[in-house]
């Protein structure tokens, strides 16, 4: 006997999208808070200082803040790539010192073509090489990133102090263009930071490599199962961080007009703080270029504001510490809500 029966399953009980839609409406609010809270906070704090501090809300001061954040911004973007891949780079300050010092040595010499090219290219190449050393040790040596880059923090610093302990002054005037000149009203370092930001955003959001950085940090096993070369991604991430530190070293030395072997001491902590305040997860996979930059800006604004308010230096540090912890605490709470 042939019996035909049609069956209705639960999709008829409720249109399949219904649950999702009501859920997504609820999501919009929390996503807004979660994804854009940091920008609101930035604006809020900027206005708070504008009200309380005389001369804070001027265009000159705004440009000054951007100028001050440029070096740390470039380093933070490199750090973001590393942190996204579930790594960490503690050696950024030391790499900056190596790059800046060697660059400075060439910038003091006569402005022959060779010297000019070397002064500009050497810091970036050195940064890249230092980053590659970190990357090889992390990816193929399987040494934890914290240990590799902690070792590198000491070793690179030791190297540059041993190689050239005395500061290098009297850099040629052409060299100072990078750090001290302006195009229109925009200082060159701010332009460089802007270029790096755009480049990094495209790299992270629109290229295969960027996608794989998120995948490696978010779920390394899933990435490997999808045929992604996890080791290569890790190598590139550290190389990129090193390269950006080299660039930051160039800008830093040029702005200062001098190269010192102690430059960049403690930068790694500020860079990590910037990325984390910008909502990135130290467990990898989460964070954006824009927010990392906002994190760096936030820290810079608070620092500048506190200086202008004549807050004593030890108290500034206490405030910074509290801000770093509370930023992450708030971020975690918001995440728990959804």
């Amino acid at each position, binding site marked *: 006997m042939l019996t035909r029966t049609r069956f209705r399953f639960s999709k008829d009980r409720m249109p399949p999208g219904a649950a999702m839609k009501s859920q997504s409406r609820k999501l919009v609010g929390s996503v807004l808070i979660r994804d854009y809270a940091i920008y609101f906070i930035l604006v809020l704090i900027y206005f708070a200082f504008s009200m309380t501090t005389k001369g804070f809300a001027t265009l000159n001061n705004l440009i000054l803040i951007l100028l001050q954040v440029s070096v740390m911004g470039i380093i933070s973007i490199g750090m973001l790539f590393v942190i996204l891949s579930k790594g960490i780079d503690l050696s950024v300050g030391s790499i900056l010192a190596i790059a800046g010092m060697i660059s400075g040595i060439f910038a003091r010499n006569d402005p022959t073509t060779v010297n000019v090219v070397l002064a500009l290219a050497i810091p970036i190449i050195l940064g890249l090489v230092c980053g590659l050393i970190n990357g090889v040790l992390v990816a193929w040596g399987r040494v934890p990133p914290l240990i590799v880059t902690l070792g590198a923090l000491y070793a690179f610093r030791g190297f540059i102090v041993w190689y050239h302990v005395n500061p290098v002054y009297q850099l040629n005037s052409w060299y100072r263009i990078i750090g001290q000149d302006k195009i229109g009203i925009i200082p060159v370092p701010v332009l460089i930071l802007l270029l790096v930001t755009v480049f990094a955003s495209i790299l992270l959001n629109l290229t295969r490599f960027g996608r794989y950085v998120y995948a490696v940090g978010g779920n390394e096993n*899933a990435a490997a199962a999808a045929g992604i070369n996890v080791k290569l991604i890790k190598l590139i991430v550290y190389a990129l961080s090193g390269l950006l530190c080299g660039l930051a070293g160039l800008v830093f030395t040029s702005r200062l007009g001098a190269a010192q072997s102690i430059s960049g001491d403690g930068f790694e902590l500020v860079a990590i703080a910037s990325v984390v305040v910008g909502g990135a997860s130290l467990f990898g996979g989460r964070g954006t270029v824009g927010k990392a930059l906002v994190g760096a800006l936030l820290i810079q604004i608070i620092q500048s504001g506190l200086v202008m308010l004549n807050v004593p230096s030890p108290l500034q540090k206490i405030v910074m510490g509290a801000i770093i912890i509370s930023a992450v605490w708030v971020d975690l709470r918001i995440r728990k809500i959804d």
Partner: protein
Amino acid sequence: MDYSVEVFESQYSGRTRIPFLQKVRVVVNTPRKAEDRPVSQLSGVSKSFTGTNAVRHVDMDIYAGEIHGLVGENGAGKSTLMRVLAGLHPDYSGEIRIAGQLERIASPRQALSLGIAMVHQELSLVPELSVAANIFLGREPNSRVPWLISNKRAERNAGRILAEIEADIPPSAKIEQLSIAQQQLVEIAKGLSTDSKLLILDEPTSSLTEPETKDLFRVIRNLKERRVAVVYISHKLSEVFEITDYITVLRDGMKVDMKPSREWDEQSLVRAMVGRNLSEFFPKSHGACSEQVALEVEKLTRVPDFKDVSFKLHRGEVIGLYGLIGSGRTELATAIFGLSRFDTGLVKVNGRTCKIRSPSDAISYGIALVPEDRRVLGIISMLDVRRNLTHANLAHLCRLGFIDQREELQLVSDNIANLNIRTSSIGSAISTLSGGNQQKVVLGKWLNTDPIILILDEPTRGIDVGAKAEIRSKIDHLAAEGKAVLLISSELPEIIGMSDRVIVIRDGQIAGTFSGEEAEVETIGRYAISGSS
């Protein structure tokens, strides 16, 4: 196509049975044609992990347009067999033919290129990336701009695949915003995006609710109509009956039988799954238990893991707590021990109500828990045998805050002698011991806390037969000494052979209690597995 409708009532659909809620099963009879070649043909496939044979000489033919159920007890080798097919265990032996061609499946990538996709029990998605990015991870579509990838195209293609399986999920949503059920669907979409001809689903409903399961079934039926072969691994028999065309039963890594689903019924399936001989020796020499209640649990509830669980455990008694993985048995044990919380209910020790907020509270009340996963909660692998044996009761060994070395050494050598722990020295790292001896150390550690109540969660899992027998006889001795033992195990013969009473837990509730004489493999297996879902 020939449809027939069978109306049957589930025998164990609960006490309150509503007449019109009869279960109806549609059997679509698509007889295999002679010229059909199986999509995948396994012959003599074996896979062993150090020492144990997980899968032994399994033959299995999987045809296009068929949903093939793969069932068996925990540890029967279902997942392992399918992981071989998905390229995750390249060191298998035996032959695998895909569409008639002999293939050596060496990597997940190769399996994918052969059209085999597996949706694993634990999800393998990147939570921070979008649905589309996850579906095309590793195969991102290019943008027109060189070097760049196109999110738009990925989302469009993902939307198409999701629509095909009628999953209403926006391709741009991030995975972390989705429910588990939706993530499950994304996994399936990912599997299908490679144009797979064979999709393996490993316990896909373990974290789904009833309506979500129904939606998933609709998707699976759609796949079937598109001539995709589906292997469906599950231990929920009602689901297996509802969705599959063929059922293969594995037991101890070997194939017991393969028949069309309609030729199985619950009884024969359960028998095939659990019905093994009580060939192993189970000592039960301890006499009748005393009247003194050591542990009383009253209406213990924690949504959604367990609900209204009540029982009394006497001194000198062994209660076997049987249930499938996910039935709530381990959750119950850890809640009694204070490792996790419970919502409502009471735990009484020796008749007194106890507030157990942490394992240290539990220890002070005389409760010990030998945990399920030795490597996670049992041993500290970097430490030696001595430190592993004594770290739960260091306070007893301390004089003025210092560890009394001589007493510790004495205790440890007593333990080693009593439990017959085979180790080269007391200073050997515990990781150098065999699994069975590691387990004896864990047991010894808890016996050193001088407990009245022993909760043993899978005390003999993954250890060799000799060590199993030793641990079982030790448990029996402990009961004879007057300890109260709650024994949790996936091995039914062990439960039945060791226990004075057996409590069956299913979906977090007690499904039945049996005295030692009533306890039979088939009955208990049936209570644990089937019934109303």
